[in-house]
């Protein structure tokens, strides 16, 4: 294809040419065409200018946040530790379940009938309670829907909370916790999570739910407003 027959390559092709995403033969032909076609060369130059500009923008430095780095690394390490513990527990539970099945089969064989056993259910070591939901109106700020919660960490390691999701009859709002929320071992923490609502909003009947993503898994609590 040449300028003599007044045919040009489509601009879409020059875009792909710039990205090196064309077959070699097509690319060579287009390169040859450029020498004799100022119009196509101008299109390519313009695409190049935008692309080089975007690459230069991508080289700009990001704001340094040493505290954020420290916190994220701590969360990452805690998640990996939890996953390791979970894997070990799963292996252990798998082994115990296998032994239990074998033992059960043996007992059933000997006694004929297996008796049902009562099981004790203990309270979870990490607990979240949604104490109340309400709409609070302030003098200056817009009103907010508030979730009063209690978080108890009965584990021997600290609990980091890094995301909160609240859902209610008015919608859902997910937000990462901006500053580190940490519950120390044995600590019980009371906290309010709030989201802004419209000036004329009132507490609607329905299910209000709060979910915390933590280093120890997900914690969920609900309250139904009649």
């Amino acid at each position, binding site marked *: 294809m040449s300028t003599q027959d007044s045919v040009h390559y489509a*601009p*879409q092709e020059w*875009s*792909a040419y710039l*990205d090196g*995403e064309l077959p070699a033969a097509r690319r060579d032909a287009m390169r040859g065409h450029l020498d004799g076609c100022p119009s196509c060369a*101008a*299109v390519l*130059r*313009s*695409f*190049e*200018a*935008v*692309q*080089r*500009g*975007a*690459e*230069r*923008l*991508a080289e*700009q*430095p*990001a*704001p340094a*946040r040493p505290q*954020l*780095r420290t916190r*994220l*690394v*701590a*969360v*990452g*390490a*805690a*998640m*990996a*530790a939890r*996953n*390791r513990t979970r894997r070990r527990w799963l292996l252990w539970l798998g082994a115990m379940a296998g032994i239990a099945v074998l033992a059960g089969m043996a007992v059933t064989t000997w006694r004929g009938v297996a008796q049902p056993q009562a099981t004790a259910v203990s309270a979870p070591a990490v607990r979240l309670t949604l104490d109340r939901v309400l709409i609070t109106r302030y003098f200056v700020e817009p009103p907010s829907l508030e979730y009063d919660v209690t978080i108890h960490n009965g584990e021997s390691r600290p609990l980091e909370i*890094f*995301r909160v999701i609240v859902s209610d009859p008015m*919608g*859902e709002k*997910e*937000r*990462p916790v*901006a500053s580190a929320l940490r519950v120390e071992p044995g600590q019980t923490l009371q906290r309010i999570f709030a989201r802004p609502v419209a000036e004329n909003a009132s507490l609607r009947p329905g299910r209000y739910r709060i979910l915390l993503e933590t280093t120890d898994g997900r914690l969920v609590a609900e309250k139904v407003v009649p």
Partner: protein
Amino acid sequence: MIELDADTLRRCRRGDPAALGALYDAYRRPVYYLVRRMVGAAEAEDICQEAFIAVFRAVAKFEGKSKLSTWVLAVATRVCLMHLRKRRRLETPPETADADEAEPMTLRSPSRELLDKEFLERLADAMDRLPESQRTAVTLRSFEEMSYEEIARAMNCRLDQVRAALFRARCRLLKLLEDH
């Protein structure tokens, strides 16, 4: 872009804090830039934080089928897209692409303008005004290592959609720059 060595990556999978710190340091700038372009400056810090938590959570499952840098950017892209989807549910529908993008504009003197700081500011402003898929494609493409195939994987779309999105983005950027 920097690639972590095999030993650091292995330690990342085990949750070694020093290795996770090295991963954060290596990809903080591109991830922040990607997030900043995709969700805007106001929410960039929060979503960047979410993106790294997602990366740290999933790094144990990274199989090495692509470069680590590509994988990290793909995870960050998905976090951004999820966030934009949620945001869209709460807001009015985003602006759709114009139909007048068939013919590209040409810049009068791109090589001179490229040296200009003002040009970069105008380009950044224009990129913020692109429709979501075009903005994502052109941002990912600005990390030169990312091929169409890798961008398609990150955006969960087809190769031809990436090609079209990049072309339309470039046309629209040129138009916005000329109109400025």
